[in-house]
Every structure is written in C-alpha cells, then in structure tokens.
C-alpha cells in the first residue's frame, strides 16, 4: 500500500481535510486535540521523519503545520491544524515523542506565543530571556 493509503487507513476519521498539491506534497487537516496521537502514529508506526513545524498567524487563528517526510518516495506530508483562540493559543506538546520537537516548540512559543501543554522546558531559545512578554515577532499585529 502506498504511504498515502497507509496514512488514510491509520488515521481514519481524524483526517478532516485532504489536499494533494502534487504527488510529493500532501497536506491534510486534523483537529488540534488529535495532534499527539497523529504525530505518534506517523513517527512511531509509519516511521516518517519529522523535519520541522511551522506556525503562522492567520486571521482565523494560529495555523500549525507539522512537516513529516517519507524519504523512500520523497514525499512531504504536512499535518495542518488551526488553533482558533488567538488570545490564549494552546496545544499539546509532542516533545515527549521525539527529542527534536523540544527546540521546535520553544521557538514557536517565543515567536508566536503558542503554549505547548506538557513541554518540559518552555523557555527562550533564540531570543534573550529579558524579551518583553506578550511581544511575539511573528504575529502580524506585532509592530517591529
């Protein structure tokens, strides 16, 4: 079965939207509360490699994309979700699943203000510790 087929089978109804931009770039949507389970399935069961997560400030909320790579076929599967509460955006941390996620979530926290519930060490990574609270450089309402 192709990786597309395996993902659809394992995630089932957790997938709320699917967009195949090309044979190698697939984006699918899930609900924010399912991220830990979905990331676990993709990394531990399907053995995909986690590259990076992108957070972006959109009018509808904070959109998160988790980019997983299936190297045998050169495909990138991006798991998309929307955190609607922009005043207090929160989502489960996936740092317990793989070590690389710790830095990635710290970066998104300090640049976008997303709280990662369960993260072992949510402190500044790139910015100085004295960076003003509430000032998130990648939020579009931010004045630089």
């Amino acid at each position, binding site marked *: 079965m192709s990786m597309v087929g395996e993902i659809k089978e394992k995630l089932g109804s957790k997938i709320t939207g699917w967009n195949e931009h090309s044979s190698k770039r697939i984006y699918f949507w899930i609900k924010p509360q399912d991220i830990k389970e979905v990331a676990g399935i993709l990394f531990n069961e399907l053995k995909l490699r986690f590259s990076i997560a992108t957070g972006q400030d959109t009018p509808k909320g904070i959109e998160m994309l988790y980019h997983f790579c299936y190297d045998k076929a050169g495909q990138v599967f991006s798991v998309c979700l929307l955190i609607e509460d922009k005043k207090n955006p929160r989502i489960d941390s996936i740092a317990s699943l793989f070590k690389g996620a710790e830095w990635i979530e710290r970066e998104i926290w300090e640049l976008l203000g997303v709280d990662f519930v369960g993260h072992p060490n949510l402190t500044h990574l*790139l*910015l*100085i510790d*004295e*960076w003003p609270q509430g000032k998130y*450089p990648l939020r579009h309402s*931010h004045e*630089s």
Partner: protein
Amino acid sequence: MSIKLKALTKSIWVFHAACSPCNNCDIEILDLLTPRYDIERLGIVLVGSVRHADALLVTGVPNYKTKERLKKIYDQAAKPCVVVAIGGCACGRIMFRDSYNSPCAVDEIVPVDVYIPGCPPKPEAMIAGIAKLIKKVRGEK
C-alpha cells in the same frame, strides 16, 4: 601617537569577535591564513584571547545576545586596540537593520577605526584595509 600603537604596526595580533554573522566573512578571515594569502608573513597573527590582541576584527550584525558580549570583549582588550568592522553587516547592518532582533549597529557599541565593506569582502580587500590602517597609525599618507 603612543609608542605601543606604533610598535603594533610591525606585528598585529588580531582577535576575531563575531556578533551574529553568516560566517562568510569569518571564513574569508581564516582564508587569510592559508597559503594563497598567508598574512602571517606580514606579522598578523590570530590569537585566542582578546587580552593579547592589538586589533579586534568584528563581523556580523549585533543582536540582543551578542551586543553585551561585544562590549565586554572590547572592554577587556588592552588599549590602544583598533577595531576593524569587516563586512557589510558589521559596517552598517545592511538588510538586517529592520530585524526585530537587531538593536543597533557595531559602531554604536564600540568605536570603529576601519570599515571594510563587502559581502563578503575579498581577502585582498581586507589586506588593503589593514594596510590603510597601518599607514594611518604610522601617520603616513
């Protein structure tokens, strides 16, 4: 003109202080040590501690994490110590001046004596810049 400053023009010991560079200028500085340019024949030596340095080579754009470090390094250096800003970033921050993480330019933190622009400046440009500095220090035209 102090005796020490005149003396240092015979053999300049340089300390390399990087702010937040892309590393290109730093690699070109190291390139000066390699056989093609070989600045050691001109008496210029790269040292591991700023206390031994006569000149401070600064590269990169200061950001909040490196701004204090640069100030401290300059304060630690035995005076007189000339400061050379190498590369467009150190000279004027170029495209990073609007960045949220860049508070100021290098010459707002430490007094700069020589600006060597370029992205990165070629090793020949750096040697020319240092030669100009030596001439200026000796009072030659």
